[in-house]
């Protein structure tokens, strides 16, 4: 196994549902290799999205160690964690989560506003990335003027525009038709194989796992199998 970028040791997470404590993750141990493409699978309530949120630094574990590129992100303050996310993580959501009042180009530029790049460089980079995902002719379109597949490609462009170490995708094909889903998965695969991006993807769709090189199964908050994909 190559150098792990994500190292998780005995990770636990609980939520309160009313007065009841629900243990969502029950001591997860996992390593994700740098440049790997990992698919997290499992039934609803298995804890896969919670695990993804913890890896992405938008939630904090109760117990356990969570190290990304050697940095224990669970010890970071809220502001440091926000800065870490802006530099290291690219997000892809099931429902794209684009800003409806901004154009495709402005949506892609959004994470770059947190960098030191000037306006000209930000624009040029956003355009390049949008052209790379095949939307060079849709720069000035608002999300409601784009199809679901196109919107997800804008979201992917937004996720990679800062050149992050890690891309996390939560059901990226869950809201797409078969053709669009296939396009998005192919794009993710290219990002992994050609650009060397580490991708962790939550999916329900067994057919989506063919692009991953590792499939992790979770059930009831526990990791039940961790196997190499047969892609």
């Amino acid at each position, binding site marked *: 196994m190559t150098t792990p970028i994500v190292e998780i040791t005995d990770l636990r997470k609980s939520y309160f549902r009313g007065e009841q404590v629900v243990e969502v993750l029950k001591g997860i141990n996992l390593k994700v290799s740098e440049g790997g493409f990992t698919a997290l699978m499992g039934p609803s309530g298995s804890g896969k999205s919670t695990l993804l949120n913890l890896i992405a630094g*938008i*939630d904090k574990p109760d117990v356990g160690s969570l190290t990304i590129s050697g940095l224990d992100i669970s010890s970071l303050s809220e502001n440091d964690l926000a800065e870490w996310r*802006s530099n290291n993580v690219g997000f892809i959501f099931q429902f794209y*989560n684009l800003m409806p009042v901004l154009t495709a180009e402005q949506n892609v530029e*959004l994470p770059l506003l947190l960098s030191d790049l000037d306006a000209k460089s930000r624009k040029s980079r956003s355009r390049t990335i949008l052209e790379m995902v095949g939307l060079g002719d849709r720069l000035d379109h608002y999300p409601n003027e784009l199809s679901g597949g196109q919107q997800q490609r804008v979201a992917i462009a937004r996720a990679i525009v800062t050149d992050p170490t890690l891309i996390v995708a939560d059901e990226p094909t869950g809201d797409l038709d078969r053709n669009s889903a296939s396009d998005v998965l192919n794009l993710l695969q290219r990002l992994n194989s050609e650009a060397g991006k580490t991708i962790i993807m939550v999916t329900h769709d067994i057919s989506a796992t063919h692009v991953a090189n590792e499939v992790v199964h979770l059930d009831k908050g526990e990791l039940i199998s961790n196997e190499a994909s047969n892609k």
Partner: protein
Amino acid sequence: MRVPFQYIIRNLLVRKVTTGLTAGGMALVVFVFASILMLDEGLKKTLVNTGEINNIILTRKGSDTEVQSTIYRDQASIIETKPIVANSVDATPLLSKELVVLISLQKSNAKQQSNVVVRGTSTKGFELRPDVQISEGNFFRSGSSDIVIGSAIAKEYSNTNLGDQIYFAQRLWTIVGVFDAKKTAFDSEIWVSREQLMQAFRRKNFSIIVFRSTEKQSINTIQKEFDSDPRLSLDVKLEQDFYKDQSKALSKFINILGMTLTIIFSVGATIGSMITMNAAVANRTNEIGTLRALGFKKIEILTAFLIESIVLALIGGLIGVFGATFMEFSDFTTTNFQTFADLSFGFVMTPIIALKALIIATLMGVIGGTFPAFHAANLEIVDALRSK
């Protein structure tokens, strides 16, 4: 502020109805606030501009108004001989002994009568106030029952055309002229021959004396000179200061009324803004979660929503100030509590008033936006992302 300004502006634009209604509420408050300040400014300007800068007005000690004051004829004779009184071109003292009385006249657009100042004066009264110019007709003839009326009287009272007759002091007086006093308090007066007015009201004494001083001495020095003569128990004031002081009570009333209305309205508008911004936060919870996930910090989200609220308030503020400027085309007439006479004055917009009105709008935006912005900034990212 790293959340793009365009995101803030376009979010306001896409919610046209709520943005319009909230900005409208704020515009109303700003309109009321600016109009009250404009009214106060108009009052002050009218009364401050009344009178000439080098004119000195003498009243009986302790009299706040011309109507309350009495100056005896022998006192007037002494004053005329004072070296401080400048000479007119005809080598006579540039001094006007005046009688000021109140009469009731019928307003053209109201059922009730209003008090009007009638000033008994002479050609010297006009000479001392060069801004008062006959705009229609002629001066009154000395010793006649002619009267000239201010432009505000001509506009607001019935039967005030040239040649019309007005009945008071058991006499009919004929309007022979209209004067323009450049929007000062004199515009709300009737001027008449002093001796005729004294006869008609059976008065032996004058109300005030106005004179032009020969040199620029401080008013305290002139007061001391008059105080040193036991026969002259008089208050000495610059004519402009005298009329300015008469604006104090009305100005205070306008300000208290205005502030009360503004406070009541602004509470409503601020609550409206708070509701609008809360709805904006509720509708955009998912967007807030996304922005936070992308790395925007709490303070940046808070600032963005606060700016959105302030921009919304400033839109209302600008509309309110713009609307208020149209008030400059209208005049306002009310009774001056100090003189009990009607006074006509306009609304006057100044850059300071516009600035104050926009500051009020900004304050409403800040107060209305703080809680929703704080709420938005403190949403849990995971919960916000789950929101549809």
